């Protein structure tokens, strides 16, 4: 499907769309049809909550966060768990992590998994984030893997090596861990990788890429079904490469411009009713035997 056509489909995503990829071909259907198809389990993705954001692009980012949580709770199938794909806070504003933790208590799910965005680690190199969310991750470094009903999930950290001129990167230690982690998996195991900054080069001059992301992608190519979820760019974009599909998510706080559509990637100011179509969460459905995972976008309006 051409990018233009894909964006047109997104434009009518009023009640939620399912994107299903079969043999590399994308098709869209409505949420009702997807719900009827019946999934083995579903999980949610929430991203870029930016607690502490108070800019003009959204004066009520706590309100849109609560609406996003309400959207997750209103899903016809309760998500088994929810992934937060980073930028929990806006530049580590004091108290932001605690405020978010309090708000997320309202999410109706069994468990939440977190990975950091650059906003969560920029000021102190990750100390505060890892003291809260490091427990249960590999050597308390923030990256982690787990299995759920036959699907192998891997959460990566690609925001801890920011330095002048270099943004997202995984680093050799994490790549070595990932290689070892994936070695144990059978090629028929569905893989879901989640990371904050896109692992693929969406728009490098805006920092929308992971310098060594291609190495990680190389490691998952041997698997029959790979779904890569990210945040960071505050908009839905999708790319298919063989058996690997990449999906970037909306923010709950503020939208950002399409790649290259503005002089810089700063928060995008839009009309109030338009804003709610650009914010939201997503649901992912897994059905055994159906290789691709179905992605259901849930904008606020």
């Amino acid at each position, binding site marked *: 499907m051409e990018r233009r056509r894909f964006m047109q489909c997104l434009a009518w995503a009023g009640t939620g769309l399912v994107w299903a990829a079969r043999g590399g071909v994308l098709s869209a259907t409505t949420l009702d049809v997807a719900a009827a198809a019946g999934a083995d389990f579903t999980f949610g993705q929430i991203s870029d909550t930016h607690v*502490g*954001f*108070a*800019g*003009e*692009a959204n004066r009520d980012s706590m309100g849109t966060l609560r609406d996003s949580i309400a959207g997750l709770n209103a899903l016809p199938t309760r998500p088994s768990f929810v992934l937060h794909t980073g930028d929990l806070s*806006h*530049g*580590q*504003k004091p108290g932001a992590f605690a405020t978010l933790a309090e708000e997320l208590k309202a999410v109706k799910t069994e468990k939440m998994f977190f990975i950091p965005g*650059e*906003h969560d680690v*920029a*000021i102190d*190199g990750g100390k505060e984030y890892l003291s809260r969310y490091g427990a249960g991750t590999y050597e308390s470094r923030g990256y982690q893997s787990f299995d759920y009903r036959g699907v192998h999930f891997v959460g990566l950290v690609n925001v801890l090596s*920011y*330095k*002048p*001129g*270099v*943004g997202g990167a995984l680093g050799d230690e994490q790549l070595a861990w990932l290689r070892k982690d994936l070695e144990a998996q059978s090629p028929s195991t569905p893989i879901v990788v989640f990371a904050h900054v896109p692992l693929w080069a969406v728009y490098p*001059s805006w*920092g929308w890429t992971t310098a060594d992301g291609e190495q990680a992608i190389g490691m998952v190519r041997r698997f029959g079904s790979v779904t890569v979820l990210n945040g960071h760019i505050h908009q839905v974009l999708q790319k298919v490469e063989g058996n690997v599909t990449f999906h970037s998510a909306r923010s709950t706080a503020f939208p950002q411009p399409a790649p290259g559509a503005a*002089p*810089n*990637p*700063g*928060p995008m*100011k839009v009309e109030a009713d338009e804003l709610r179509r650009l914010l939201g969460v997503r649901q992912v459905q897994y059905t055994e035997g159906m290789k691709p995972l179905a992605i259901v976008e849930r904008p606020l309006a």
Partner: protein
Amino acid sequence: MKALIATLTAALALTLAFAAAGGAAAAPRVEIHQFKFQPAQLTVPVGTTVTWMNDDEETHTVTATDRTYTSTGLDHGEKFTHRFTAPGTYTYFCALHPHMTATIVVR
């Protein structure tokens, strides 16, 4: 008479030099505008306190390359100051947008 003129000239030169240094130290300032530090290179005397002001809607940081100092996330209109106490060339960047880099030269 000649000696007096020489003395006065020297005194005047010293006063001017002092005024120039004092003027520079009073308000050395870097603006953050459109994802750039402006000026990208600023030269100041030892002991100068530099002020950064974020004019962007986006949040930025002022972070030393060696991480010896950093601002918090600066929202629109917020300021950060740092005093440079030793001569040298100090590079810094925005830890949220690492393509934003700049330099303070301290003499």
